[in-house]
């Protein structure tokens, strides 16, 4: 029984571990050899899947864009219609929320929506298939122990992905704030709100308090973005893994959870996109 429990927990652990690559003493090494490297590790499975999916997204959309650019008034095909519907959908959401003029926000929102959706979509691939395949390939062609081959195929269950997306949005938020309000305006926004008086001395007393609140409010935004997506997808993945270890009974359960998860992955992609737009429109709004 104890052995069984260990094997189950090690199985789960195996599923939740990224394939790592790092440089030790000038040599590139993988996985367990990287345990001492701390921050200086690349999750190669996360990077490969996310960049691969990003390229897939851009390649497909580029095909539609080239077709659309060649003859703007030609009757669009089904795929092009689908792409244009997505574009229109994103554009409507952006226009209803973001009232400035920006060439960046709408493509950014589209990229986030589709890319995050595709990364989430990997969650619907049965959890054991690709890791097992990777283990088999590693064992057969590279002479590795299949337990040493890690393959986490859903990039959004890796906190690095969601944090990097949120950091990207955070950088844009700061950039927009400074671009619209200027450095002084941005600092004023951080120090003169929410407590504001006409009396200069009282105001000086309130500045640190304001700064604390506003900086907290600012930093919470990317945190909530990153952790919401990560938490949802990580939990979903966890449940898939748990369902995956209960034997034959997993089939109906897996189906039910997968159907439910279709909703979650679309919703999370949409929420990430919407919150990005909202945060950026808040950052570029002049009045507090």
């Amino acid at each position, binding site marked *: 029984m104890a052995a069984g429990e260990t094997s189950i927990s090690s199985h789960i652990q195996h599923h939740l571990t990224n394939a790592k690559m790092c440089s030790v003493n000038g040599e590139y090494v993988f996985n367990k050899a990287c345990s001492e490297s701390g*921050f200086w590790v690349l*999750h190669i499975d996360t990077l490969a899947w996310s960049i691969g999916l*990003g390229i897939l997204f851009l390649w497909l*959309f580029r095909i539609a864009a080239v077709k659309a650019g060649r003859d703007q008034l030609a009757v669009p095909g089904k795929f092009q219609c689908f792409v244009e519907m997505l*574009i229109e959908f994103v554009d409507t959401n952006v226009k209803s929320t973001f009232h400035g003029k920006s060439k960046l926000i709408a493509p950014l929102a589209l*990229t986030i929506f589709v890319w995050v959706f595709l990364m989430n979509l990997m969650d619907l691939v049965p959890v054991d298939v690709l890791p097992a395949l990777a283990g088999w390939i590693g064992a057969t062609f590279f002479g590795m122990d299949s337990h040493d081959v890690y393959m986490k195929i859903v990039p959004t269950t890796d906190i*690095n992905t969601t944090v990097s997306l949120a950091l990207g949005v955070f950088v844009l938020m700061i950039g927009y704030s400074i671009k619209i309000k200027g450095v002084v305006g941005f600092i004023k926004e951080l120090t003169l709100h929410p407590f504001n008086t006409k009396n200069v001395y009282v105001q000086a007393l309130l500045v640190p308090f304001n700064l604390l609140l506003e900086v907290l409010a600012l930093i919470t935004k990317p945190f909530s973005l990153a952790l919401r997506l990560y938490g949802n997808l990580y939990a979903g993945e966890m449940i898939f893994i748990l369902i995956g270890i209960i034997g034959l009974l997993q089939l109906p359960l897996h189906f039910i959870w997968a159907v439910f998860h279709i909703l979650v992955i679309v919703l999370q992609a949409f929420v990430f996109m919407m919150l990005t737009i909202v945060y950026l429109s808040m950052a570029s709004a002049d009045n507090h």
Partner: protein
Amino acid sequence: MNLTLTIIGQMIAFAAFVLFCMKLVWPPLMNAIEARQQKIAHGLAATDRAEKDLALAQDKAKDQLKDAKAQAAAIIEQAKKREAKIIEEAADKANAEREHILAQAKAEVEAEGNRLREDLRKQVAALAIAGAEKILQRSIDEAAHSDILEKLVQEL
């Protein structure tokens, strides 16, 4: 929860994807969508215009048909009047002709009658003279009584 260098890699990828999308995906598609929207708007406007034009043309056609009918009626009316006039004129002319012919015929008849009467008179006179001659041959000298005979012929 282990933050690693992966974040930097992902951020670079994210930035690259957003840039690619912004430069090479979004503008052509948005332009195409807008161009198509405009085309559809033009098409709809053209349809509206065409409908108005059609209504106008129908009204015009109706008016023209009405005019044509009125004109046709007027022409028929005129033609009828003309016909009546021509018939009347022809009748007048025929009457005049008839009277003329009648008058001529009467004159001819009269002239013929006069001539016949003259002939007859002459013949009667000759007969009378012949008769008288025969009666008077024995008793009367033609030369001696010629003046009387002349007088007689004159009286006939």
